[in-house]
Every structure is written in structure tokens, then in C-alpha cells.
């Protein structure tokens, strides 16, 4: 158990300024070794994505016809020019992975932004007004949640047509109810508190009450859910790409790369190994960070 001295600052967060809160948060977050490693990996990935044209040794779509299915450089048949080998069309795998980082991070960012904005809007309205508005909205969310997420995303993409943009829209739509439910629950929890009642008596409008008074106090669980959804989005988009419904070839998206590589798995395992490793590393780093965020932001779950 934590001793009272360390619990005290968390119990009274309102006293400090934003900077103090951030400092306290960072102190908590830093203590979690896994979370710091995760954050470092994510920072590295962002750098790789930003500097992709400088870092990649080759153009990701250029086909070297004299080097088809070339093994990685450390194998006897490998060449130093293709560090991680080439795929069936003679494209450099390392370069494709480097450019693929852009797609995965973009997917995570876009999906979470859409799902978070939509979910918060719906959830806050639902929780704030209550009554039949709440009932109708939550029943619709229940319907979306009744379908296994990947199945619904799959069917949505079948309707919208395969492609990266449609895949992102579909995944965002499927993830959005989780945010709506969280936002609703926290709003319902907060709206009867004294500070909200005080603001209402002081004449604050509904919109101001929702967005300025209540919402900032509901953010912690939403941020944690956002991080977790970031990794779900990357996994689901890669799965859709793998099934041929996400990003289309020759886009160097990691899931799509795996789909292209499937027929060569026994002959050229490296074509399969590296894109998957990239997905796993990214998702793992984000989840490590998410765990750290949850422990730091949610005092109830704080380690002793």
C-alpha cells in the first residue's frame, strides 16, 4: 500500500496549476520503466516516419528485377544493398518498412481523432441531457457493439469499397461507441457535482457547461482509451490490409505487405517476418505507454 504522503498530492489535484499536474503526472509515468521504453520507441517511430525519404536506402516501390526474393544481408546469399532482403517483385523490404511507419502512425492518428471526436460529442450529449436522447443514443451504440469489431469493419469496407481511407473510416466508426460510453459515464458522474451546479447557477449555457466545465474533468479515462484504440486501429487496419480490403498494393502498408507475402512464406520467410515484427513492435510500444498512462492518470489503479 502507498503511504499517505505519496497519496496526498493525488487526492487534491485541483489545488495545483496545470504545470504542477503535468509534473506530477510525469513523475508517476517515469517510474514505469515499460512505459518509458514504449514512449522512446514511439518517438523513434515518429522520427523514422518523418525522415523516411532520407533514411530509406531505396524507393519503396522501385522493383529491382535482378534481385527477386533476395534474403537478408546476413545470409550467405544476401547483399549489403538490401539489408532486410527483397520481396517477390524485387522491392527493398527495409525501405518499404520505413515508409510503412508513415501509414501506420497516420492510421492510428486519424482513427483515434475521428473516433474520439465523434464519441465525445455523442457521449457528452447523451450523458448531459439524459432521458430519451440518452436511451436512443445508447441503444444505437449497443447495436454497433453487438457486432465483433473486425467483422463490422470488414462489412463496412465491403460497402464503401476497399482502400485505406475507407478502412480508417470503418475502424473509427466501430471504435467510436467505446468513447461515447466512457464520455457518457463520466459526464453523468460529474454533472451533479457542486462545481457544475454552481456554474449553472452562475448562468453558464448548456454548451459551456458541457465543454468547458464538465469535459476537462472527464478526460483521463478518454486519454487512456485513446491510447489503447491507437493500437487497436493499427492492428485492425493491418488485418484489413492483410485480407485485401485495406490499403491497396503497391502501398507499403505493413498489413498489405504481409498479404503480398503469404504465398512465399515457406520459400522466403523474411518477407513475412519483418512487416509483422514492425506491427508487433509498434503496437507493443503503444500498449506499454497506455499501461503507464493508465497507472499515472487513474489514481485508483495506482501501484503501491
Amino acid at each position, binding site marked *: 500500500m502507498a503511504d499517505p504522503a505519496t497519496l496526498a498530492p493525488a487526492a487534491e489535484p485541483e489545488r495545483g496549476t496545470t504545470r504542477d499536474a503535468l509534473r506530477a503526472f510525469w513523475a508517476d509515468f517515469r517510474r514505469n520503466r515499460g512505459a518509458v521504453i514504449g514512449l522512446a520507441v514511439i518517438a523513434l517511430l515518429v522520427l523514422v516516419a518523418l525522415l523516411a525519404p532520407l533514411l530509406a536506402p531505396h524507393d519503396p516501390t522501385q522493383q529491382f528485377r535482378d534481385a527477386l526474393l533476395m534474403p537478408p544481408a546476413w545470409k550467405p546469399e544476401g547483399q549489403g544493398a538490401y539489408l532486410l532482403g527483397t520481396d517477390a517483385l524485387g522491392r527493398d523490404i527495409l525501405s518499404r518498412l520505413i515508409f510503412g511507419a508513415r501509414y501506420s502512425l497516420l492510421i492510428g492518428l486519424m482513427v483515434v481523432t475521428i473516433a474520439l471526436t465523434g464519441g465525445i460529442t455523442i457521449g457528452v450529449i447523451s450523458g448531459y441531457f439524459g432521458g430519451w436522447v440518452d436511451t436512443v443514443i445508447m441503444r444505437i451504440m*449497443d447495436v454497433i457493439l453487438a457486432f*465483433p469489431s473486425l467483422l463490422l469493419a470488414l462489412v463496412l469496407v*465491403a460497402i464503401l469499397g476497399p482502400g485505406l481511407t475507407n478502412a480508417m473510416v470503418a475502424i473509427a466508426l466501430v471504435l467510436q461507441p467505446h468513447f461515447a460510453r466512457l464520455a457518457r459515464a463520466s459526464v453523468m458522474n460529474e454533472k451533479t457535482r457542486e462545481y457544475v451546479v454552481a456554474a449553472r447557477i452562475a448562468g453558464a449555457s448548456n454548451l459551456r457547461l458541457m465543454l468547458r466545465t464538465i469535459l476537462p474533468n472527464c478526460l483521463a479515462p478518454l486519454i487512456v482509451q485513446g491510447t489503447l484504440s491507437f493500437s487497436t486501429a493499427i492492428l485492425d487496419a493491418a488485418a484489413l490490409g492483410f485480407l485485401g480490403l485495406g490499403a491497396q498494393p503497391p502501398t507499403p502498408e505493413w498489413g498489405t505487405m504481409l498479404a503480398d507475402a503469404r504465398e512465399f512464406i515457406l520459400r522466403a520467410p523474411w518477407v*513475412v517476418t519483418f512487416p509483422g515484427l514492425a506491427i508487433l513492435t509498434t503496437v507493443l510500444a503503444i500498449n506499454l505507454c497506455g499501461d503507464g498512462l493508465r497507472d499515472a492518470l487513474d489514481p485508483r489503479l495506482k501501484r503501491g
Partner: protein
Amino acid sequence: MFRYLLGKLAVLIPTFFGITIVAFGFVRVLPGDPIMLMAGERGLTPERHAQLMAQYGFDRPLWQQYLSYLGDLFQGDLGTSLVTHRPVAEDFLTFFPATMELGLCAMILAVCIGLPLGVLAAVKRGSWFEQISMSAALVGYSMPIFWWGLLMIILFSGTLGWTPVSGRISLMYYFPQVTGFMLIDSLLSGQAGAFRSAVLHLILPSVVLATIPAAVIARQSRSAMLEVLSEDFVRTAKAKGLGPALVVGRHALRNALIPVVTVIGLQVGSLMAGAILTETIFSWPGIGKWIVDSISKRDYPVVQGGLLVIAAVVMIVNLIVDLLYAVINPRIRHG
């Protein structure tokens, strides 16, 4: 208990109708009308088109179409496949046992791995065992299982040659389907080696499908166990001088299991999502592969029917889990 069930149904029944609206709406929002979809590439004369629209009732108002869709549904009619021309409901029953067998094995595996791992990690808090098992759980939780499946094939089927690459049983064996469960049917057939073949085909897909649920169960049972271990009654049990095995086994575990049961139930939905990927990789003839194939063949009645039935199955399983939860936790059903 009965009131609890009624309360659950009051939420589930509207949700079910919502699901039917989604499935009904799905075919209607596709570009082109349903008759054009059925005709496919061949094309139709305008007269024939109008005749077919009338024959199938697509010229009626949408709400009438929906009502007749519901009517068909309650008679067990899910439509007819455009590709095989067989009733969708019949196809579903053909493919469902394969998914059920795979899903059950994966779930059993996930519980057998995840639960002891999580409980032990909580009991041995701060040890290297907790470190390693929880790191493994996090890796499992982050796993792109379609890649994981391919890696398993490379290692166990390719390099070691231990397991077959795809399907449910070797083509050498043929026997009638009695239960639809290959493990049971192969035993019933009495053919030498058939059961072994079925087991070997089942191992890799089950392990792949069990990966994420096992990780989630391990993480959840650890935190549930940690919470229970810090409670007063556990301290009392320890103070009475009970040994650690008795404290954990008789007092703590029972209470820690309650949230874990819910988590296991929640995994059914993600198991279905996982089945789509696992079945595709291992060419496992279940409903996941059935749906993916139907999407790529644009067999929309199958997608529509499959979507509905899968959601219904997940819903029913979740209801059963909720009821079980109420049985083991009296606070819920009287709350």
C-alpha cells in the same frame, strides 16, 4: 433472478432489432439495386429488371420490405446464396461447427494458460515470474495474430514438419459427419490415425486464436487477484494461520474469479473477429472464412445473413455469461 433476466432482455430485444435493421440496410446501401447485384456482370433488359424487382418485392416501400424480411427471418429464412444457390441458413449450419470446435478449443486453451498465469503472478507479486509472465501477456495482447499464424506455419509446418498447413483433417480420411466436431467424428469413425490427424490440424489454429484471449485473461485475473488479496477477509484468513495455498485456493480465488468470468465472456466477440483471420490463414472451413470469401465473391445475401447470425450468437453467449455472472455473484442479481 427472473427480474434480472427480464431487465437484460429489455436491453437485448431492441438491440436485436437494431441488428436486423443493420443487416437489412446493408444490402440496400450498396451501390446498385439488389437485382443488379444478383444479375452481376451479365446485365438485364429494363423489362426483365422491372419484372424481377416486382417478383422479389423490391419495388415496395422500404418498411414493407423490412417487415417481410423480418417475417422470413423468424421462419429461419436468411435468403439464398448468389454463388452456391443454397439457403444461407443451411450454409451457416454447415460451417458453424468448424468455428465452434476451433473457438471452444481456443477458449479452453486461453483459460488454462491465462488463469494460472495471472493468479500466480498476483500471488508471487514482485518476483521474476510476475515480470516474465506479464511481459509475455502484454506481447500476446499486442500480437497481430494473422502474422503470428504465419510464423507458426513457417516454424511447425515448414521447418519442423510437425503439423499440416491447412484444413481440418487429412484428405486420406473420409467419414460421415455426426456431430460436426472433427475431434469427435474422427473418434466415432474408428479409423486408425483419423483422430491424430484431426488433433494435428487443430493445434496451430487453436493456439493462434487463443493468444489474445489468454493474454487478456492473464492480465485481468492478476489484477482481480491483487485486489482480492488486499482485502480484510484474506488478511483474516492469513491471521488464522491458514497456509498460502488454502488462502489463495479457498478464499481469494473464488472472489477473484467473478470479474474474470465476465472477461472470458467478453472474449467471445473478439474470438469471432479472431476466427475471421485464423480461419483465413489456416483455410479452416468455418464461418469466418465463409464470410471473407463471400465478401470477395460479392455474395451479399451470405454476408447479410452471416452478419446477423454472428451478432445474434455473440449476443446470446453474452447473455448466458451475464446470467452465470449473476449466479456466482449474488450482489448483481439482487442489486
